[in-house]
């Protein structure tokens, strides 16, 4: 009896600690969402309060939506969707191709290319930031979405590596049997490997999409005309220009910019967790 009471107290403390800490973790996000309904006075002078002290202000959302220099956030969200959408699809196709080659085909130089892929995995992007800009500038691509999406057509090391790990789990007997039956290695990719890679592809879709959606440095360097801004860049410039005078509207648009990410999180939570554990492990 005493033992089970002790166990109950222990379990209660466990949930109190883990749950309380969890609440603390997501508090900034909740605070941002609630903040999108507060007016400036509220945000500045009652900053310790969680709920609005001076009423709920829905107009923040309408004010924020108006956007910046004549372009509404509708434009910026469309731009973000185009960039993140193209980049994500390109990443999935190119990375799965490269992963198939490196994991399954014994071609000359495979080991060298595999090492190159691992090296790019660890290469800090800033090292090639300036020359890449020069290259895009020389083909007149600065100011367009090309520099933001083009690299994704050549495979992304992180996802190639993840898909290779996943390929290792697909029984080789499957491709061998298909090969004996006269299926070419091209068809093995499209008929056998690609369908079986599905869980890995879903993970790639999710992670690449939100990485690209959140990206700030790329748009900052390449996009200068407001008509081309992505949501993240627009949000920053919006905050600089009107953030000081209208925190509520800034919070409203900040919340809005995270909604696609929240949705992904709610729908694909399981895939995300599995994907990350399979990438990280065995590495």
């Amino acid at each position, binding site marked *: 009896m005493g033992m089970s009471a002790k166990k109950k107290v222990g379990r209660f403390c466990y949930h109190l600690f883990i749950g309380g800490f*969890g609440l603390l*973790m*997501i508090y*900034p*996000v909740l*605070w*941002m969402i609630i*903040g999108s309904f507060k007016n400036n006075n509220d*945000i*500045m002078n*009652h*900053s310790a309060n969680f709920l609005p002290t001076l009423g709920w202000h829905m107009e923040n959302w309408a004010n924020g939506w108006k956007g910046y220099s004549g372009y509404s956030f509708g434009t910026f969200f469309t731009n973000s969707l185009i960039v993140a959408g193209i980049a994500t699809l390109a990443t999935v196709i190119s990375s799965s*191709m*490269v992963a198939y*080659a490196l994991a399954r085909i*014994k*071609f*000359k130089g*495979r080991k060298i*290319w595999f090492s*190159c*892929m691992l090296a*790019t995995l660890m290469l*800090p992007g*800033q*090292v*090639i*930031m*300036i*020359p890449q800009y*020069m*290259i895009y500038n020389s083909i007149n691509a600065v100011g367009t979405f090309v520099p933001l999406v083009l690299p994704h*057509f*050549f*495979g992304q090391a992180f996802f*190639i590596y993840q898909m290779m790990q996943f390929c290792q789990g697909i029984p080789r007997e499957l491709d061998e049997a298909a090969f004996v039956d006269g299926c070419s*290695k*091209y068809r093995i990719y499209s008929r056998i490997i690609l369908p079986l890679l599905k869980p890995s592809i879903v993970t790639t879709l999710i992670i690449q999409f*939100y*990485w690209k*959606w*959140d990206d*700030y440095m790329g748009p*900052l*360097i390449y996009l200068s005309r407001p008509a081309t801004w992505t949501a*993240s860049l627009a*949000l*920053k410039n919006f905050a600089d220009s009107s953030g000081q005078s209208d*925190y509520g509207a*800034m*919070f409203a648009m900040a919340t809005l910019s*995270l909604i696609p990410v*929240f949705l992904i*999180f709610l729908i694909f*939570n399981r895939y995300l967790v599995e994907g*990350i*554990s399979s*990438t*990280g*492990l065995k590495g």
Partner: protein
Amino acid sequence: MKKKANAALAAQPKTFKQRMQSDNAVGYVFAAPFIIGFICLTIFPMGLSLYYSLTNYNFVHADFIGLNNYVRMFTGDSRFWYSLWRTFLYVILAVPLKLIFALLVAFFLTRNTKIASLYRAVYYLPSLVGGSVAVALVWKQMFARKGMINGILGAIGIDRLNWLGDKNLVLFPLALLTVWQFGSSMIIFAAGLKEIPTSYYEAAEIDGASSVQRFFKITLPCLSPVILYNLVMQTITGFMVFTQAAIITQGGPADATNFIAYYIYTQGFKYFDMGYGSAISWVMLVVIAIVTLIIFKTSKKWVFYEAGNDD
């Protein structure tokens, strides 16, 4: 010998098609995207960047000036040294804390209950949103003079702190934003914890080992390869910190958050001193390579690989 020749002769009209079926052809067709990208968008720019670092390239002209950029960096630019120092401080502050949190929380959430997976999801959420501009702006507001943190401190009778304006304090809010995103490392640790055979723990329990002993004698050694992976990846990302410095502090106050990546950006795209920016990029690459190498070298002392698991 003759048979082979005959077969080759018979197959002559189909050579191209057949050649395309060889492993070499298939391999290069599928690997082509990576190979083209690697050469055009990684190796070529790296070479170009190395060349620019030996010039005074500024968008208009590029005169070869030898090692002058490097001489200037090492002897004449105190901002560069300060930037390197502050980046190191930031990495040393943020990365170990992040990994400790990730490991502890993963350890406490190993049970496979529904509620544990809910907690895991809650702890993971910050990793998903933490890199965004939106959260950086929220952070800026939280740690502002009249922000939420000071509001709460004030409510419990502590003086306001100038979090983002004091160079002795400013690294804490920024490091906290990084530590806050411990979720993805946590998930990798959690997967690693699952791989440790329960028989190890059972044996230790029979031998009378306490739970603390079990953590240090079984969990940590078994997990050490995963710790190494997380440490290397997080250190590299730590050195590349950019968004936080660009949005929350703009490198300030008094260059206290002028991290290397931000410094390269300002040299290249604000002052258009792209030759000098390229030179700093290369020094950054070498610094990160050295740090990574040191981690790998020391790892031989603390990473344990199970026998027979060496593929």
